[in-house]
């Protein structure tokens, strides 16, 4: 190679290296910029309401009063309900796929579960409005009220729309996340663990209970947290089903409001700066919560997936 071609080659090399470096850094910048941008826009609301924003129960744009508690409550209730339903089912799916199903069945079922995750949120919302909510109103809620009506959770008029509908649709939407991550960490459990348990005469269930689940425990917890993160920030389906009323009521039948839903509904209607700023602050809280959840969840999943701590490998 002559000196000249060597030089151009090294210039080309440097250009590509710098270009990729720039793009990598831009991702980092993007994350900080988004946080900063929201913090800026939320400023007026943070200055005016301080910590009281989180504990305030009144949301009245006309009187310039902004308290986010009803939205935090609605978000937490629906998300917890979703976790309660989706965790056992998602774990069941993960165990079925990883420990029971033969390859062909596993491939088909895994694809179907992936499809469940691929259906757009707004389609779940549409289905929820016209199929799920009427079904809840006419069949499920009267039955729940009849058998468990003594609990405050299941009292009140069956409307269909409300926290129950929101929680159910979220359960469907986060189930694939929980199943996929749990499956991933179960697959990372070394086969020696399973073989050892089986060699000692364990049944399959005992093998799963003794050798697989304890090993995958923290990874599964991570999967559940990622599911929770998804539930907290899910917007469209919840907006279409939760009933959109900023009340704090104990009954799951009651309409409520979620943080993402109030942003979706009122953002373009925010007529003055403080109003907009309050909505951005709700978004900022959501951003913070999901960020922390994600960091913890990734650490947990990573601690399992990277393999055993010392010893067997």
């Amino acid at each position, binding site marked *: 190679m002559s000196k000249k071609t060597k030089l151009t080659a090294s210039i*080309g*090399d440097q250009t*590509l*290296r710098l270009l*990729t470096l*720039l*793009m*990598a850094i*831009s*991702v980092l910048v*993007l*994350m900080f910029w*988004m946080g900063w*941008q*929201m913090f800026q*826009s939320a400023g007026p609301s943070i200055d005016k309401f301080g910590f009281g924003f989180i504990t305030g129960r009144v949301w009245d744009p006309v009187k310039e009063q902004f308290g986010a508690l009803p939205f935090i409550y609605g978000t937490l209730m629906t998300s917890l309900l979703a976790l309660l339903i989706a965790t*056992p*089912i998602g774990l*069941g*799916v993960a*165990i*079925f796929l990883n420990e*029971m199903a033969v390859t062909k069945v596993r491939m088909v079922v895994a694809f179907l579960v*992936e*499809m*469940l995750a*691929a*259906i*757009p*949120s*707004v*389609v*779940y*919302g*549409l289905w929820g*409005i*016209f199929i799920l909510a009427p079904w809840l109103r006419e069949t499920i809620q009267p039955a729940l009220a009849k058998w468990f009506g003594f609990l405050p959770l299941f009292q009140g008029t069956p409307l269909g729309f409300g926290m129950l509908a929101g929680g159910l649709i979220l359960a469907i939407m986060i189930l694939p996340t929980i199943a996929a991550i749990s499956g991933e960490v179960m697959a990372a459990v070394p086969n020696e663990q399973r073989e050892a348990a089986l060699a000692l005469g364990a*049944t*399959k*269930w005992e093998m*799963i209970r003794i050798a697989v689940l304890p090993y995958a425990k923290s990874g599964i917890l991570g999967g559940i947290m*990622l599911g929770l993160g998804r539930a*907290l*920030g899910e*917007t*469209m389906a919840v907006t*279409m089903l939760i009933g959109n009323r900023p009340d704090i009521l104990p009954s799951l039948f009651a309409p409520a409001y979620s943080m*993402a839903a109030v*942003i979706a509904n009122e*953002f*373009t209607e925010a007529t003055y700066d403080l109003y907009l700023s309050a*909505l*951005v602050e709700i*978004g900022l809280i*959501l*951003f913070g919560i*999901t960020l922390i959840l*994600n*960091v913890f969840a*990734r650490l947990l999943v990573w601690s399992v997936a990277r393999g055993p701590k010392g010893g067997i490998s």
Partner: protein
Amino acid sequence: MNDRLRKYRNTMMMGIFIVATLIALIPLFGVLGYVVINGISALDLDFFMNLPKAMGVSGGGMANAIVGTLIMVLIASLIGMPVGILAAIYLTEYDRTSWLSIAVRFATDVLTGIPSIIVGIVIYTAVVLRMGHFSALAGGLALSIIMIPLIIRSTEEMLKLVSQSIREAGYALGISKRIIILRIILPTAAKGIITGAMLAVARVSGETAPLLFTALGNQYWARSLNEPIAALPVQIYQYATSPYAEWHQLAWAGSLVLILMVVILNLIARFAFRSRSN
């Protein structure tokens, strides 16, 4: 513990896991079934060719929304794919272990995890407010932010699969790093990268929340990228929550189109990937 009890318990638990899997699949078939049944009756040539009619009038279509979605997904891809693929190249080919790579991977995870409506807020305050109007550009930009981390993750995974010996063979021949990356590694991983890109496209074409206050929606054709523009998911949302039966019909038909797009992209991606790994 007696053996029969243990075996009985084992059978019971296995049964529970199978039932859980069946329960998990009910909503999938429930949603797909209703969307197909309700959507197919409103899905005709008009749907693809015409603008929406006035409220309460039957007929009309979502041509503008379909085109709007395609335009914004295209904008998002034009930004998201180069940024994502180049960043992934940096993470695998230039620097796998430094603090910078770890920080970038962390940022990628954070961006994957944040709710998509947050992206809408940021683009609204940073772009829409500054420009003074909603636009296709703002919508496409919002979608690109959702796309970038997805592309980085999938591309990185595919580049890692390229065997180290291929890289070493390149170095041994004295080929420059740029040529090794552009001519050897990228073509080897191309199928996987395209698969990931298609899945990312499928994912963003169904996004509604980030478009609500960036693209806004439009009942008519947008004449430029600087105007509010319709998008299929946004239109579905607006129609589903409207009180008109005719619009509900269109919402179902729109959902059918959206789901077909997503499922077909997923199937092609799967098929392409499988033929590679076998």
